[in-house]
């Protein structure tokens, strides 16, 4: 990806009169860190990057904005928000459009075709972080790590993130501006982790998830980072009725994780953010991917592809499978 072209385009968009701000990525404070950047004018875009470290899904920020009541006589700021998206992020935007979470006129989508991201945890484990800001680049058959002025070439399979190995849509499905030529999509890997759990006995699955869920500290990071968890009044925050108690024990943790996963059934676009931010390293992706697989195989539905489609749980087909009904 040509960074000069990216910054030029970003500056152009951010300088537009009808754009409130542009959301992109920039280098973080040390090591492999990459931070989201908000540019209100062309100056703010000078340091923007797009590298294999840009795992963060910026579509989250579309719905995180706090909408305070306006003082009397003040006009609302109806300008657009511009954001950079990878393939998976663009599916989040498409799903938000489906659910009327945002309106098409409210966003400018800058598409970045994505050859695959690295797994940040795996990366810092194998190639320890430095105090200096390190960089990553794509090469023809892998990644190039630039640390302390040294370049290390790494094969693609070694560091590629799980979600990217399974990725089916590396190119943005919704975009106003494309920054590059579409990348050639690769053959998605078989989702063996989910198949492995499916193959276990019921008790084995229960024990496995009991172990994982008992680590949950109920920080709700997974909910907060999710681009599609945008309810103003989340059931997890409610006191009355209290759907899930706040106590951190196995029963409530399981109920919370079931509720979270279920609310994303037929909506999750598999950007893997929940799993990345989880401080307890709960493999949330395995639940989300299982539900996505069921939705795909049984109902022939894939979320986040067509902004004109109907939401999965708010629609039905008369011939939906009903083999589970007595």
């Amino acid at each position: 990806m040509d960074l000069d072209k990216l910054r030029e385009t970003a500056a152009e968009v951010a300088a537009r009169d009808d754009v409130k701000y542009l959301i992109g990525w920039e280098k973080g404070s040390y090591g492999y860190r990459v931070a989201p950047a908000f540019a209100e004018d062309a100056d703010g875009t000078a340091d923007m990057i797009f590298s294999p470290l840009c795992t963060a899904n910026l579509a989250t920020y579309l719905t995180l904005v706090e909408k305070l009541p306006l003082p009397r006589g003040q006009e609302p700021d109806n300008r657009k928000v511009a954001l950079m998206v990878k393939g998976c992020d663009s599916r989040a935007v498409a799903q938000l459009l489906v659910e009327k979470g945002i309106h098409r006129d409210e966003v400018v989508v800058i598409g970045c075709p994505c050859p695959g991201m690295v797994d940040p945890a795996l990366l810092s484990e194998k190639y320890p972080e430095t105090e200096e800001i390190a960089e990553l680049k794509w090469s023809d058959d892998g990644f190039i790590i630039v640390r302390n002025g040294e370049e290390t070439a790494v094969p693609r399979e070694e560091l590629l993130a799980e979600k990217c190995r399974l990725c089916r849509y590396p190119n943005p499905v919704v975009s106003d501006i494309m920054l590059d030529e579409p990348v050639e999509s690769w053959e998605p890997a078989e989702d063996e982790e989910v198949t492995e759990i499916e193959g276990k006995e019921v008790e084995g699955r229960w024990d496995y998830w009991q172990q994982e869920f008992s680590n949950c500290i109920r920080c709700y990071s997974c909910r907060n980072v999710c681009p599609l968890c945008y309810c103003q009044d989340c059931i997890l925050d409610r006191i009355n009725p209290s759907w899930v108690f706040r106590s951190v024990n196995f029963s409530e943790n399981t109920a919370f994780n079931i509720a979270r996963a279920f609310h994303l059934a037929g909506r999750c676009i598999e950007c893997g953010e929940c799993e990345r931010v989880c401080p307890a390293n709960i493999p949330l992706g395995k639940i989300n991917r299982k539900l996505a697989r069921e939705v795909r195989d049984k109902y022939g539905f894939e979320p986040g592809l067509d902004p004109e489609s109907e939401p999965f749980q708010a629609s039905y087909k008369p011939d939906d499978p009903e083999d589970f009904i007595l």
Partner: protein
Amino acid sequence: MSANNEPNIVAFLCNWCSYAGADLAGTSRMQYPSNINVIRVMCTGRVNPLYVVNALQQGADGVLVSGCHPGDCHYMEGNYFARRRLGMLKDLLEYVGVDPRRFHMSWVSASEGHKWKEVVEKTVEDAREAGPFEGFRRRQIDW
């Protein structure tokens, strides 16, 4: 599950079909297990999937959701939505390790008293086979 190993089943019945069906089974003096605790809802589409999770947390060993046959819904399409949602929920519960015998869904119309009897017998039998479900109980804390 009570002391004598009888399963505790929560059943969500739709007002227009299954509740009337259960009523018919009662007025026809059909004998069926009394482990069912019926909660009447106006439509299966009204059953939030978290009701099922909550019931399992609060002491149910099995949950049954029953409504009108597809196409017969009093509200035209409520049971179609329910079928989709609760079908997904059943897959999810199975995936996290809840025994699939603990959650059932059925279509019972107002005239199917006999089918209601069969459904209840099957649900109770399944829950009894699956045994008491202690792992998921909400812990009672006395402050």
